């Protein structure tokens, strides 16, 4: 009796999941499909995913448009990888400190950091630009990495994670004679892998998709990131060239999909930590 009830529940669950999945995946597929279509087909073609007029023309156009393309790709990749590595360490350390170490002023610092997140970014654009100018960092990769080398949201995320982290694990390592730094880097960070992986993918995506910063700070075409380079193709005159926009979006999304699939292992497997030694 009980068993049957569960299986009906499961069927309902699957139906919900499948409906939700279709709603979720459809726009993504539409974007991919549009990247192969001519403009007219996208604008007038409605919701169809497959059509006869699909071709590689949009991609050929984009890759043929600038010889700087590989360079932009490399720039984006370097900035995103360096930025992500730096972020993971800085944010995790800060999150750890704010949740598991006790020192005077800790909660004040935590709330002050949160408060900084609350000022809308539109009003910070010009002040940030002037700060970077005074530091002599305009038109450099540093201007893309350094200001984003720490992320309050992710510090916050790591703080919340370490709150759930069983203290017994650390205590055991402490008894084994490991100092604070060794415990952090050798025990806590590895055990935090699922959350760090989550953080890493979002930080990476943040760098990879960042548009405003490179747009304002980078002046030289050879230093463009991929998003900026792709955007610079856009004509400002006659409406959106959807076919090119979609192809550009697909090109820039591909590396993230690959990275996601690599990291997915961590999301999925994770490390089951039980409190006991």
């Amino acid at each position, binding site marked *: 009796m009980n068993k049957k009830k569960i299986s009906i529940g499961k069927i309902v669950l699957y139906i919900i999941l499948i409906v939700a999945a279709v709603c979720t995946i459809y726009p993504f597929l539409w974007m991919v499909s549009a990247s192969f279509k001519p403009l*007219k087909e996208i604008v007038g073609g409605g919701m169809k995913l497959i059509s006869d007029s699909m071709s590689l023309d949009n991609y050929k156009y984009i890759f043929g448009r600038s010889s700087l393309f590989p360079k932009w790709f490399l720039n984006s990749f370097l900035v995103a990888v360096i930025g992500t590595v730096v972020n993971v360490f800085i944010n995790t350390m800060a999150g750890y400190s704010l949740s598991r170490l006790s020192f005077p002023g800790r909660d004040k610092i935590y709330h002050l950091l949160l408060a900084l997140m609350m000022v809308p970014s539109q009003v910070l654009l010009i002040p940030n630009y002037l700060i970077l100018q*005074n530091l002599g960092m305009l038109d450099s990769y540093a201007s893309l990495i350094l200001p984003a080398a720490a992320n309050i949201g992710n510090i916050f995320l790591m703080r919340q994670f370490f709150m759930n982290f069983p203290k017994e694990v650390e205590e055991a390592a402490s008894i084994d004679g490991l100092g604070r730094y060794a415990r952090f880097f050798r025990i806590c960070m590895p055990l935090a892998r699922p959350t760090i992986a989550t953080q890493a993918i979002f930080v990476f995506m943040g760098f990879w998709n960042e548009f405003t910063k490179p747009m304002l700070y980078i002046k030289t075409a050879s230093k463009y990131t991929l998003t900026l380079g792709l955007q*610079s193709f856009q004509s400002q*005159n006659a409406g959106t060239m959807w076919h090119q926009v979609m192809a550009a979006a697909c090109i820039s999304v591909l590396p993230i999909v690959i990275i996601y699939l690599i990291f997915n292992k961590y999301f999925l497997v994770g490390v089951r930590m039980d409190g006991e030694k």
Partner: protein
Amino acid sequence: MRKHFKKLTTLSMAAVLTLGSMAVTVQAEEADFAGRTLNVGIWGGNDQETAALEKMKAEFEEKTGAEIVFKTYTDYNTQIQADFIAKTAPDVFYIDANVFPFYSSLGVMEPLDPEEMEADQYYENLLSAFTAEDGTLYCIPKDVSTLATYYNKDILDEVGVSPDDIPTALEDYKDFLTDLQAKLDEKYGEGQVAAMTYNPELSRQIYILEEGGASIIDEDGMATLSSDGVVKNLEFYIDLVQTGAVKTPADLGLGWNGEAFGVGKAAIMEEGNWVYGTLKTDYSDVNFGVKEMPTYNGNQHSMSFTVGYGISSVTEEKELAKEWIKYATGEEGMQIWSSGAGCLPSRAAVADTMDILSDPVWAVHSKMIDVATPWQRGTTLSIVDSAYKNFVPAAYKGETGAKEAMEQADKQANSEIENSI
């Protein structure tokens, strides 16, 4: 920092003085510019525009020995404001006429000498769009675009309407479009194809709203959208829209007129000549014709949109920048630009050499230049336009009266204007 800047100004002042005193010889001594670099701020264009710019760059570099570096703006307004504030702007840059009053009021641009720049060669209404209130000229128009009426020959043909039936007076549009819409509904199904599309924006409607001496902005820059003349004109257009035969592209689920027209969801549209290139490349199967804008109240109107080159007031390459403007907006450069990029030359002489009238589409657009209202109306225009866009849809849908909607728009615009004074 400030000291450094002062030094720069003195230096460039000195340069101006020396160069000024030998103004006659400067042009002859082109080798002067060899090895110098000029940064030119532009925004992205289509392939043809990019190719035209590259060609101009190559020719200019050969002529002067200087190097041209293009800086492409992707979000012009945000980027150039940051550039002006930090004094990192390119030496010479594009300025759209509609934001010209704001930037010229900030003192970020170098005044230009009308005589030296051959100002009398350009269409007068374009030049006035780049002249500040005190009469100083700051930019030279590099091109111009105008609105004209586009119609889809095949669609009209299908329902047995001849392009000649399209009235020449806006007053006759109501009957004509209502009739056309009925025929379209019968042929293609209810609401599938709109007889005409329109844009509820000031940049497309200012000439209608201001017909008969009405004005949307007073001398102090305050919004006067709810003044009687403007409301009367708006009511006329609302009456037209409420026939259901005139729709916005958004009503049809599309981004702009060009898309609606290109995919055959609109039989008639009023668009700028930038759509000509799109229709040729992306919607090549659309069989279209172009005619003049309708008259309203007996007067022929259109809108014109122009972009000019301005020189940064802190540039160290003022002479080279002027040289670039003279070249790019001169007969030689403008011909490369206009024929390549697909826009109208801002010099009448170039239009003649290019034999623009031989192309029926260009001929119509060109004819509209003189009757067109340039899209420029002082520093408060963007605020007034935004308030108009905000409140006019309710009036078009008949939810509020025209007067009421415009009063709301005025109230909002003027409070925004006051907040920033």
